[in-house]
């Protein structure tokens, strides 16, 4: 397990798309460092030949159903929560491609 650096914190904020001030990054580094050191105690346990747990209930089976269309949310109800006024039945976002 490795030591956390400020660069790693920066990379993590980029990966998870959370803008973060320098100051916040400093405090995140301090907090997460401590937690990761705490995590290291797991290395005291021998997990050689132990299968990782994929589901807590044994013998779970896939649940299948017919591919039939059920009731769906009407568009106007969905748009009640839209952060910008919808346009022509679509969610509005700023331009993704630059002009020119």
């Amino acid at each position, binding site marked *: *397990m*490795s030591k*956390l650096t400020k660069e*790693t*914190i920066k990379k*993590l*904020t980029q*990966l*998870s*798309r*959370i*803008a*973060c001030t320098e100051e*916040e990054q400093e405090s*995140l580094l301090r*907090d*997460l460092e*401590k*937690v*990761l050191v*705490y*995590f290291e*105690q*797991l*290395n*005291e*346990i021998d*997990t050689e030949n*132990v*299968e*990782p*747990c*994929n*589901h*807590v*209930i044994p013998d*779970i089976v*896939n*649940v299948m*159903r017919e591919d039939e269309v059920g009731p769906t*949310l009407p568009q106007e*109800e*969905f748009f*009640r*929560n*839209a*952060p*910008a006024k919808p346009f022509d039945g679509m*969610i509005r*976002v*700023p331009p*993704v491609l630059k002009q020119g």
Partner: protein
Amino acid sequence: MMHTSTAIDMQDRFLRGENSAVSIVQHFLQRIARYDKQIGSFLSVNETKALERAEHLDKKRASGRPLGKLAAIPVSIKDNILVKGCLATCGSKFLSNFIAPYDATATRLLEEEDAIIIGKTNCDEFAMGSSTENSALQMTYNPWNLKCTPGGSSGGSGAAVAGRLSPLSLGSDTGGSVRQPASFCGVVGFKPTYGRISRSGLVAYGSSLDQIGPMAACTADVALLMEVLGRSCEKDSTTIPKGPEDYLSKMDGSIRGLKVGVPWQFLEGLLPEAKRVFDQGLEILKSLGAAVVEVDLSLLKYSIPAYYIIATAEASTNLARFDGIRYGVRSPRSHTLEEIYDLSKEEGFGPEVKRRILLGTYVLSAGYQDDYYKKAQKVRTLIIKQYRDAFQKCGIIASPVSPFPAFEIGSIRDPLQMYLVDIYNIGVNLAGVPAISIPSGFCHEGKPIGLQLIGPQMHDVDVLRAANAFEQATDFHQAIPPEYAV
């Protein structure tokens, strides 16, 4: 006094025509208006809709039509569970304007049994925390001592039941979030076997651990909620494909001859006051004919690191959906698509949520996944096995819920110290087993202390039976915080 009666008695009196649904709802709305300014358990109250529904139920009763198991009983619901047309903020700024477009399955089942949803309760943001202090929207105070937290993350639900502002409440328990506030608030809180209650419409945090859990003033009322909620659901493929059970009738009976396992080695270092109440709880179980045996759960000292790796990994995936595009609060500072993501999350998420997202992103990132995530999943396998071995020797495991009673607001500032608070709760979620917290005594300052009873997977009824037997022999669950008794 209406608020001191159990939900079961309340429903009975409504059916017999002694109390109208409107009078029941009005009584609790008045209590909320009178007391919740101090307690702060509700984020939103459904006054108009609840009264309309009560009028409808009174008419339904008058016309002689059949009424449901929860007829006229007010229920409050943690704000990370969807109730159509109501706010579902999850205690987050990001969702502070989000109105649920559909009902959670749990909500739908409550309404089908004629319950009255009276409001939404405060919680730690996205259920991440152990004190409800991480709610971005408001503080909740413990009705037993307003200087203290109600626990968390379902602290609003715990406080609402403790203050008798609603007889029943739904919380969610990912790592103790129903049981710990139940213990701090002196009420009953149950985390069923993983998959017993549908998670459809519960805002996801750690999907392999999350479970909706009922809270009430007594075990019978929790059993009543389990009868309504405990069933498979086509919208949650992890629900257990089994029909509903008769929790109430099966839970009756003696626990004579029951073997109660205690993981003494794991409980070393328990603080004296918690130890005193725990020992006294064991004596009560013994007096009811149970035998105490020692079991080995020594691996549980690793449950916190394993849990925080798995839960944050799942959280970082689950919370990626909050991008400010289709719903939620979009940052007004954003001018590009990238800025919508970056700034909406920056402004919308509080510090603990950011910490957990980053931690989860880290433990899942290339090069570290085997060291952290896979390692934790292997430890989880071993913990599950240790529980299974323990249940070869006993029917129920007893443990404290929390190392201490409700702590003062602001007294735990270090995130890691806050994680340690749930040391006795987290193993239960990792193993997917059912567990309950029931009132079992008080500390010298008069704050409640809960006893935890844990069963094997699918033995939810056995847990409720042991809890009910304990309750029948004690009166801790009848205590109401003095300021809110009248």
